[in-house]
């Protein structure tokens, strides 16, 4: 079989440049849409860019290619991040990003696999992605398929009980072709995660559930790449990367602002934000 994958990017500076472009496109989409989730799309951007453009094998011209690595955005509200990446990767024309959240657009408010081939499963109701990732990893293992599965969750999302059901499953079945990421931006809609419903000590919890845990600065591209390499090398147990991140990362006036969880930028804010990202 001819394997057509985008050339993987290994250069850190190049990955950082892609991440800047992705951030600008996220904000463009949200501004055009007039609604959507700004903070959590920006916080997970660096990790998601590293996974897609430096680690994963995939083929946008054949999204169902059976040896593709799989990606599940369990925190489905960060859909603009996924769409910006998939547009950049070539899954659909770049102009499609002008239609986020518009009626009959493939870019639904939360990711929908029916509308965009390459989205593995629909998400949006939190807590479900890790279970699906486990199922995929088990299926691939049954087929001796070397493909890997990546799954990004939110930190607030780990308040969902199903996450811990799935965490038990991953360890019980020694699923090591899966790498999970917790986007640990410490904020959720109603406020700081620790005030709404504390999840700490998050590192110890995952470890106690039988996972190999790597805590990193989720905006340091070199650390991210190192953690992803480590995850791949760990055998016999699942790996989770706790990516310590800043909600709204890259735009000073969005950073750590809980009010930008589910609010889109105004045109004025967008113009200012783009300048900051470009100069950052």
């Amino acid at each position: 079989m001819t394997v057509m994958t985008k050339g993987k990017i290994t250069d850190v500076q190049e990955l950082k440049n892609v991440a800047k472009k992705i951030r600008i496109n996220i904000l463009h989409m949200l501004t055009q849409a007039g609604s959507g989730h700004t903070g959590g799309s920006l916080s997970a951007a660096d990790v998601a860019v590293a996974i897609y453009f430096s680690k994963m094998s995939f083929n946008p011209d054949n999204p169902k290619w059976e040896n593709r690595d799989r990606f599940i955005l369990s925190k489905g509200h960060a859909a603009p991040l996924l769409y910006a990446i998939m547009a950049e990767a070539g899954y659909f024309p770049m102009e499609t990003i002008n239609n986020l959240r518009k009626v009959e657009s493939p870019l639904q408010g939360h990711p929908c696999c029916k509308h965009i081939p390459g989205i593995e499963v629909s998400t949006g109701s939190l807590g479900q992605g890790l279970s699906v990732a486990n199922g995929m990893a088990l299926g691939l293992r049954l087929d001796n398929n070397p493909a890997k599965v990546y799954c990004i969750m939110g930190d607030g999302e780990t308040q969902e009980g199903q996450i811990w059901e799935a965490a038990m499953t991953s360890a019980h079945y020694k699923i090591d072709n899966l790498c999970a990421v917790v986007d640990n931006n410490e904020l959720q809609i109603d406020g700081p995660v620790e005030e709404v419903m504390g999840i700490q000590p998050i590192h110890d919890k995952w470890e106690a559930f039988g996972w190999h845990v790597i805590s990193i600065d989720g905006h340091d591209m070199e650390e991210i790449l190192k953690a992803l390499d480590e995850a791949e090398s760990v055998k016999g147990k699942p790996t989770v990367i706790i990516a310590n991140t800043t909600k709204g990362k890259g735009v000073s006036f969005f950073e750590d602002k809980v009010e930008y969880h589910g609010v889109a930028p105004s045109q004025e804010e967008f113009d200012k934000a783009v300048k900051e990202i470009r100069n950052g």
Partner: protein
Amino acid sequence: MGEAQSTEHRTQNTDKSRTEEKKPVATRDAYGKALLELGEKRPDVVVLDADLSGSTKTIGFAKKFPDRFFNMGIAEQDMIGTAAGLALTGKVPFASTFAVFETGRAWDQIRLTVCYSNTNVKLVATHSGITVGEDGASHQALEDIALMRALPNMTVIVPADAAETESVINTIVDQKGPVYVRLGRAKVPCVMPDDYKFTPGKAFVFHIGKDVNIVAAGITVDMARKAAEILSEEGIDAGVVNMSTIKPLDEETLLTAAQSSGLIVTAEEHSVIGGLGGAVCEFLAENYPVPVKRIGTQDSFGCSGSPAELLKLHGITAENIVETIKEALKK
């Protein structure tokens, strides 16, 4: 998909003595048997259970094909998500537990990762209805058909006996997309003729009556047939339709039945809200309004007791079908 069948209504090839000779078998036992056979033939079939494999009868498959069986522990939500993931790698997952947990506990997971994502997951639940018996209301699913029927992309099937269950399982393994199959705990009489083969969306007509037609599914099919016999002795022509696929409903057969008798009685081991009775009323009200009487649980929970006692308590019996019809015909 199974071989194409005629769209004409099939009528019973009456060899009643042979059918009645067969011993009652629980539909869950038939499921376990069908899975074992499928396991041999189909390497893509995988099975998941939530700590009830001995009761749902997936245990046979588990022992014979341990690599393709996943016990998920008491975690139904995770079971459904995992099944969806397996389906997305080309497997045909059968996920089983009791109906109340399968459809209630994991409803949002079924909605998002099975129906909205249109994954090829087969949900086969056992211990539906009040014939669960002594365990009581917490374990008696009386709302599961309603819950599953409301979901886009979902097919809902309620087999009447062991033979139909086996035919259903062997058919849906080749039907792409989400399917819910509702099975029971108790042994049920064999009602379907030997040459019967299940076709999705196609009701089985025992007889179309001129005075009334009883539309049944699951264990009530046998009751409907008994009721029709009793009524026949009193000169009332009562038809019996096994509406084993509740979604999509066999509208053509239902219309024929309604046109023939002008009176329909539905019978199910489920709430009259949202189940077979609900589905039948929705269709007839819009397309051919005739009087309908719905037999089933009347907006209530179940309770502990023997299956026979509970069926009597809720009026899900051949006798109550007879009474209901006589009452309706008086008007």
